[in-house]
């Protein structure tokens, strides 16, 4: 038993991504048509040339009909995926495997979410029928549990922590301001972030990702076919996914300063791709910054900082657009917005732009060829985590 991966066996040859935000002007169907049309055009393909589809959505439609109806698909297979906030990534992962297996020549992964057709503040997820004993905490409250635990463990003061969280939000807003597809297009002063209305624990509104509508899509083919569709494909180096045993809410070992699921999925991904020094080898990373403390902890879990030091690296600007390892150059969930099912593919879309030199205003300058997406779903202590590595160069 082992996770072998499918390094360089498939490639991305086309992508599309709608503008994210409060898209009261667009339905779920509209968003799906927009993202898939853009992806098809970028690969010079007609929808009839796609053999199979994977649709990721958490709650914006059930079954493959959610995609086949608006696109008028010609009796093609559509799988509908759900895996919390990592839904889009899981759709992508399964589409890659379908092509790698030889079952299909061309597959499309699509993610979509329509959150803003309901009047709720924040994310509202209906659970299964239950006995009423499940904790009723909101997502920001659950992720805010990281903050006191991290402070206590590493001797970080409340003031220092505020500065760190603000720095993360500030950076991601600054990046999003340069991104025409982002939900929030304005840079936000640190003073505004510091004093934003409280939501949960020390987290204010500006520590939370944007609740948003949007869709993104990717077209996947066998690596050897990639140049038929584009001159600069992205090769899939690693796809790692884990679902944790939920031990963090049951056992005392879990200390709320890490996500075991992220550590394990990152180890798997690095091994699949032959990465030994993630911080040195990776050009840019799109990570799951659902809330600012999540991004802080992820820097350590993904191996971008030693344990207990990410907060200093954040303050030093390591993950800024011009830093050693740009993180969330597109603005991240924080300012690009977080339409659940679409987010994993949106992260991939930024790798698609950055690694191929198409990120315009926010183009990073690097000679490195690897990009990462990291996408998690669930809560500290019980979550699913996805890590992909993609690159412009096939291995020798």
């Amino acid at each position: 038993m082992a996770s072998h991966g499918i390094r360089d066996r498939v490639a991305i040859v086309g992508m599309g991504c709608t503008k994210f935000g409060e898209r009261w002007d667009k339905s779920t169907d509209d968003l799906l048509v927009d993202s898939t049309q853009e992806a098809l055009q970028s690969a010079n393909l007609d929808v009839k040339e796609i053999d199979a589809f994977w649709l990721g959505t958490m709650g914006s439609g059930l079954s493959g009909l959610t995609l086949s109806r608006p696109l008028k698909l010609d009796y093609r297979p559509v799988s509908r995926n759900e895996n919390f906030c990592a839904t889009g990534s899981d759709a992508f992962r399964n589409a890659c495997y379908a092509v790698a297996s030889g079952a299909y020549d061309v597959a499309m992964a699509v993610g979509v979410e329509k959150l803003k057709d309901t009047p709720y503040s924040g994310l509202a997820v209906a659970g299964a029928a239950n006995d009423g004993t499940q904790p009723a905490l909101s997502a920001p409250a659950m992720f805010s549990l990281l903050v006191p635990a991290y402070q206590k463990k590493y001797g970080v003061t409340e003031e220092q922590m505020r500065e760190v969280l603000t720095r993360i939000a500030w950076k991601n807003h600054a990046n999003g301001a340069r991104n025409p597809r982002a939900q929030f297009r304005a840079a936000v002063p640190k003073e505004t972030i510091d004093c934003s209305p409280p939501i949960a624990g020390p987290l204010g509104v500006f520590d939370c990702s944007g609740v948003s509508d949007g869709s993104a899509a990717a077209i996947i083919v066998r690596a050897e076919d990639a140049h038929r569709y584009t001159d600069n494909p992205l090769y899939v180096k690693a796809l790692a996914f884990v679902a944790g045993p939920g031990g963090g809410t049951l056992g005392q070992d879990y200390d709320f300063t890490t996500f075991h699921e992220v550590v394990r999925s990152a180890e798997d991904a690095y091994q699949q791709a032959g990465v030994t020094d993630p911080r040195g080898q990776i050009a840019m990373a799109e990570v799951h910054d659902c809330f600012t403390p999540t991004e802080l902890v992820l820097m350590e879990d993904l191996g971008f900082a030693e344990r207990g030091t990410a907060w200093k690296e954040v303050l030093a600007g390591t993950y800024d657009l011009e830093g050693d390892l740009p993180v969330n150059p597109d603005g991240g969930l924080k300012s690009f917005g977080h339409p659940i099912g679409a987010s994993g593919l949106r992260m991939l879309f930024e790798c698609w732009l950055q690694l191929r030199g198409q990120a315009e205003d926010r183009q990073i300058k690097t000679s490195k060829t690897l990009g990462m997406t990291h996408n998690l779903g669930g809560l500290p202590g019980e979550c699913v985590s996805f890590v992909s590595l993609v690159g412009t160069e096939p291995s020798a």
Partner: protein
Amino acid sequence: MASIIGYGSYVPYWRLQRKAIGGALGGRGGSGTRAVASYDEDTTSMAVEAARPIIGPETTVDSVIFATTAPAYLDKTNANAIHAALALPASTFASDAIGSVRSTAAAFRAAAANSESTLVAIADQRIGLPNSADERDGGDGAAAFLFGPGDGIAEIIGTASSSVELLDRWRIPGDIASRTWEERFAEPVFVSAATDAFADALKKANVTPDEIDKLIVTGVHTRAAKTARKALGIRPEAVVPDLVDVIGNTGAAHPGILLAGVLDEATPGQVIGLVVLGDGADAFVLRVREGITSARQPLPLATQVAAGNDTLRYADFLTWRGQLRREPPRRPDPDTPMAPPALRSTRWKFGLVGSRCTSCDERFAPPQRVCLNCGAVDEMAEQPFAGAKGVVRTFTVDRLSYSPSPPLVAAVIDIEGGGRLEFEVTDLVGPESVAVGDEVELTFRRLYTVDGVHNYFWKARPQRTVTAGSGGEDS
């Protein structure tokens, strides 16, 4: 005949200053405070809190009788939730004595007459319309008495009653508040009934009035109770203060709460008179037994009374009572507890019984079938958590989630001896008063009510400790 073999009182954490009523509505409002059941408490949950200290895993209980004037449910036995929260076996009978202050006397009489082990749980929540005497002078609280064979800690040696069909206080089912007749009308009727019943009880007990060491007289007719205390011919120093100034009159629970306070400090051989006014009067004479010295409740009444927080705002009090509707958060309603999963998890949801892996000893809350630690399947034994102490590992103040009294405070709690809980934290000085490392204990609460279903479950609260000079010195 059964004796009292265990007792407990429960005074909720919150107090409303009576002047806060005047501050909001005009007028004086009155002096002192009243005890207030929190937004997550009702008579059922308070009865559980009173009974928990006296019911251990080894305690035999043949019956549970729950007395209250403010039942959480009708057409459904509330005592069953108490029974389940105490993790008692199905063979234990559970039943309600609902309706009036006199329900307490009914429960006492039934338990004392029985030769089996009976838990009498009494709780009351006194509700009146804004600016009413019931609102101002009422109080919320609970008490519990375990009756059983043997001498125990106190024996009821005389019981007598005087029943009068009297239109003094009444309420049509569905009404929020009771109606009362003019106060002066019933006063002599009550005093006369009390005098008759008490004399009869003394006679049956073969005790003279000057042998009474402690006299408790309660009744929601405050003025009649006050007069009766003087009219019964007992030494003034034997009369037990009614605590109405601090906790209010807790109605059906009041005789139990005051009796618990007396037992906190009673010495073997003492004789206690207990007179309850309501639709006549009921009188009990009790003799304290040797067992008292080793069966005091862990947290004396005086400590519970002193531990109150009187910063409650009147607007919050009204909101908690459903008398002030406020704008709800822009969030979905909380989940309605579903009957089949609630039945399957009764031991967990009500009894807070988790599991322990018999292979590796790891503990789990809620109970698991597969061990997280060693992977053993179906090698679990029951592990009760209700009496456990824990430490806050991390916490949050959730200003987004639905709560009957926002913000919702929650913590990850590591239990002494193993196991972890993610629970709401209640009875806090303020939402920001939790810190990593805080010691907490567990408490049975009503999380919220939705679709007519009360969602009972457990929360954490700051560890309560006995304050100096509040009795219980020989326990």
